[in-house]
C-alpha cells in the first residue's frame, strides 16, 4: 500500500470506511431529488429550450439574424465556440495529466470535471455547425466520397484540422469518462432496489463484476488513455488558435497563440470547475471529499495559468510595438484605446489581476472568494475571445469598411441557450450519475484518509 507524508493534509476528511464512500456518493442518486434541483433544472431547461428555438429560427432564416456584417464575419459565434472549448479543457487535464503526475486529489473531482468537459465541448461544437447556416450539409466537413467528382476537403486548412481535433477530443474524452464510470455504475446496480433503476444501471454498467484481470486491464487502459489524452489537451486548443494564427489579420497573426490559448483554456476550465464544484459539494454533501485543500490546489492552477495568460498579453503588446509593423501596432492600440476599450480592460482586470490575488493563502483557501473569482475569470475569458476576434477585424485596412459589432437578440439567445443546455446536462449528470469516482476514491482512502492518517500504526509499515 502506498503511503504519503503524514504532514500532508488528508484528502478525505472524517472517519470514512469503504462503505461510507459508497453511501455518500450513491445516496443522492437513490433518494428523491431535492426541490432545489427541480427549480434549477426547470430554469436551465427553459433557457436551453429558448436557445434551441433561436437556433431553429436561425437555421430557417439564415445567419443574417446574427449581428454580423461585411467587416465582422466572426463575432459572438466563434467567441462562444472558443470560450466553450476552453472550458472543456479542465476535465481532461484533471483526469489525464494529473493521472500521469500521480496527483491523488484529482480523484475527487475528475468525474464531474470530465462531465463538464464533455458537455462544454457539445456546446462548443454547436457554434461552428450552426455557423454553416445549412446544418444539414454539416457532414461535408468529412472527407467522404461524393458525387461532385474528385472533390475533397482541404487538409491544408486549420478549420479542417479543427474538425478532426474537436471530434477526436470529444469522443476520446467521452470514452475515457465512460470507462471510468462502468465500475461505479456496477456499484449503483448492485445497490438498486427498484426494478427500473436496477435494469437501467445493469445496462449502463455493461455487466462489470470487478474481476482481478478486469481491474488489471482497467488500470492499464486508464493509463494509456491518459497518455493519449494528454497531448490531445495541448493539441486541441493549439489547433483552435491556428484558426487565427495562420491568418494574416493583424492581431491574429501571432506565433504566441498556441501556448497562450492552451494556458487560457486551462485557466477558464478550472474556473468553471470551481464554480460548479463549490455548489455541488454543498448541495450533495460531499464536503468531506472535495474540501479546502482541493479548492486550494485548483486555485494554484488558476494562479499559474492566469500568470501565463497575463505574460502572453504583455508579450503581445510588446511584440506589436517591437515588430515595427504599423498595422500590427494599431491593432493593439485600437484594442486598448479604441471603441472596444471597455472589453479590453475588463479582460485585463479579470484575467491578469484577479489570479494574482491567489498568492495570498487566506484568499485561495476561502471558498466564497474562490467562487467569486471563478465567475470573474469566466467573464474575463469570454471577453478575451471577444477582444481577439472582434477588435482585430472591426477596423480593417480601408477606413470606409470600419464597422462595429452589435449583438442581435438571437446572438444573445443562442449564447444563453448553450449555457442553459450545459446546466441541464450537468444537473441530469448530478442526479443520475456517480459524481465522484467512488471506486477510485476508495483506493486512496487508506493512504490519504483522515482516520488512517491519524491512526497510531500509520507510520509502522514500509
Amino acid at each position, binding site marked *: 500500500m502506498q503511503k504519503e507524508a503524514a504532514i500532508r493534509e488528508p484528502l478525505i476528511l472524517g472517519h470514512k470506511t469503504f462503505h461510507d464512500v459508497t453511501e455518500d456518493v450513491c445516496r443522492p442518486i437513490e433518494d428523491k431529488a431535492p426541490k432545489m434541483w427541480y427549480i434549477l433544472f426547470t430554469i436551465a431547461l427553459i433557457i436551453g429550450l429558448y436557445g434551441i428555438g433561436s437556433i431553429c429560427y436561425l437555421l430557417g432564416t439564415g445567419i443574417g439574424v446574427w449581428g454580423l456584417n461585411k467587416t465582422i464575419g466572426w463575432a459572438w459565434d466563434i467567441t462562444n465556440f472558443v470560450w466553450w472549448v476552453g472550458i472543456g479543457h479542465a476535465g481532461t487535464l484533471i483526469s489525464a495529466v494529473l493521472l500521469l503526475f500521480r496527483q491523488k486529489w484529482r480523484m475527487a473531482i475528475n468525474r464531474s470535471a470530465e462531465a463538464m468537459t464533455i458537455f462544454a465541448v457539445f456546446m462548443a461544437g454547436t457554434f461552428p455547425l450552426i455557423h454553416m447556416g445549412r446544418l444539414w450539409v454539416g457532414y461535408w466537413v468529412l472527407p467522404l466520397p461524393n458525387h461532385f467528382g474528385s472533390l*475533397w476537403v482541404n487538409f491544408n486548412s486549420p478549420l479542417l484540422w479543427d474538425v478532426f481535433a474537436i471530434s477526436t477530443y470529444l469522443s*476520446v474524452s467521452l470514452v475515457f469518462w465512460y470507462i471510468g464510470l462502468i465500475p461505479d455504475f456496477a456499484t449503483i446496480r448492485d445497490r438498486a432496489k427498484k426494478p427500473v433503476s436496477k435494469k437501467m444501471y445493469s445496462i449502463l454498467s455493461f455487466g462489470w463484476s470487478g474481476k482481478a484481470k478486469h481491474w488489471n486491464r482497467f488500470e492499464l487502459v486508464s493509463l494509456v488513455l491518459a497518455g493519449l489524452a494528454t497531448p490531445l489537451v495541448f493539441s486541441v486548443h493549439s489547433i483552435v488558435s491556428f484558426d487565427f494564427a495562420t491568418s494574416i489579420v493583424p492581431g491574429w497573426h501571432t506565433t504566441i497563440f498556441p501556448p497562450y490559448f492552451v494556458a487560457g483554456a486551462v485557466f477558464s476550465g478550472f474556473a468553471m470547475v470551481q464554480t460548479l464544484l463549490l455548489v455541488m459539494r454543498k448541495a450533495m454533501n460531499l464536503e468531506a471529499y472535495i474540501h479546502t485543500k482541493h479548492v486550494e490546489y485548483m486555485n494554484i492552477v488558476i494562479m499559474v495559468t492566469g500568470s501565463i495568460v497575463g505574460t502572453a498579453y504583455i508579450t503581445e503588446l510588446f511584440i506589436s510595438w517591437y515588430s515595427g509593423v504599423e498595422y500590427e501596432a494599431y491593432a493593439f492600440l485600437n484594442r486598448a484605446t479604441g471603441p472596444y476599450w471597455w472589453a479590453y480592460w475588463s479582460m485585463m482586470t479579470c484575467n491578469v489581476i484577479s489570479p494574482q490575488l491567489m498568492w495570498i493563502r487566506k484568499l485561495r483557501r476561502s471558498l466564497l472568494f474562490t467562487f467569486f473569482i471563478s465567475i470573474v475569470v469566466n467573464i474575463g475569458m469570454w471577453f478575451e475571445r471577444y477582444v481577439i476576434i472582434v477588435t482585430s477585424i472591426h477596423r480593417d485596412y480601408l477606413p470606409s469598411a470600419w464597422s462595429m459589432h452589435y449583438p442581435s437578440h438571437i446572438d444573445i439567445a443562442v449564447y444563453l441557450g448553450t449555457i442553459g443546455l450545459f446546466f441541464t446536462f450537468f444537473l441530469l449528470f448530478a442526479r443520475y450519475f456517480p459524481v465522484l469516482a467512488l471506486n477510485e476514491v476508495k483506493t486512496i482512502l487508506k493512504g490519504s484518509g483522515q482516520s488512517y492518517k491519524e491512526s497510531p500504526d500509520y507510520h509502522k509499515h514500509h
Partner: protein
Amino acid sequence: MSDKVIYAMYGDDEVLKSGAKKLVSNGIKIAEVYSPFPIHGIDPIIGVKGTRLGIMAFLYGLTGLALATFGMYYFMVVEWKMNIGGKPNFTYAENMLAFIPVTFEFTVLCAAHGMAIKYLLLNRTLPGMPAQNPDPRTTDDKFVMEIRLSENHGFTDDQVESLLKDTGFVELEKKIIE
C-alpha cells in the same frame, strides 16, 4: 460436470492479499478475486498475467497513422492537387507540415477507440451483459476470493476450508455449480 466453488469474503483488501499468499503457498489455485477497486499486488499472487492491451493500442495507433498518411496523400496529392495561392504543394513532402495536425489527431483517435473497444470485448463488458460477481457487496466494500475444487485436485473442500480458517474472512459460502 458439477463443480464445487468456495467463496471466501473479506472486509479488507490487505487481509485478502495475505490470505491469498498463504493459500497459494500451500498449493491452492485461486480462480478469481472480485473487488470493488483494484487491489495492487494481487495479480502476481493469484497468477494473473499483465495485460498486453498497451501493445494493441500502439498497433491501433500505427494503423491510424498509416490511414491518415495514405488518405491525405491520396486526397491532396494524387487525386486532386490544390493550387493554393500559387504555392508549390504538389508533393507529399512539401505539404507534410500541414498534414501533421490531422495525422496526429487520427492516430490518437484510432489508438484510443481501438483499445477501448478491445478492452470491452476482452472483458466481455458490453451493454446487456449480466453481472457475474457472486455477491452484490463486492462492488461496495467486500472482497471475495473464489476457489474451484475442479482446479484443485487432491484437495477436499474441508481441507480448503481449514486452510482458509485463520485468513480472517468474514463469510464463507460453498456452492455447487453445474
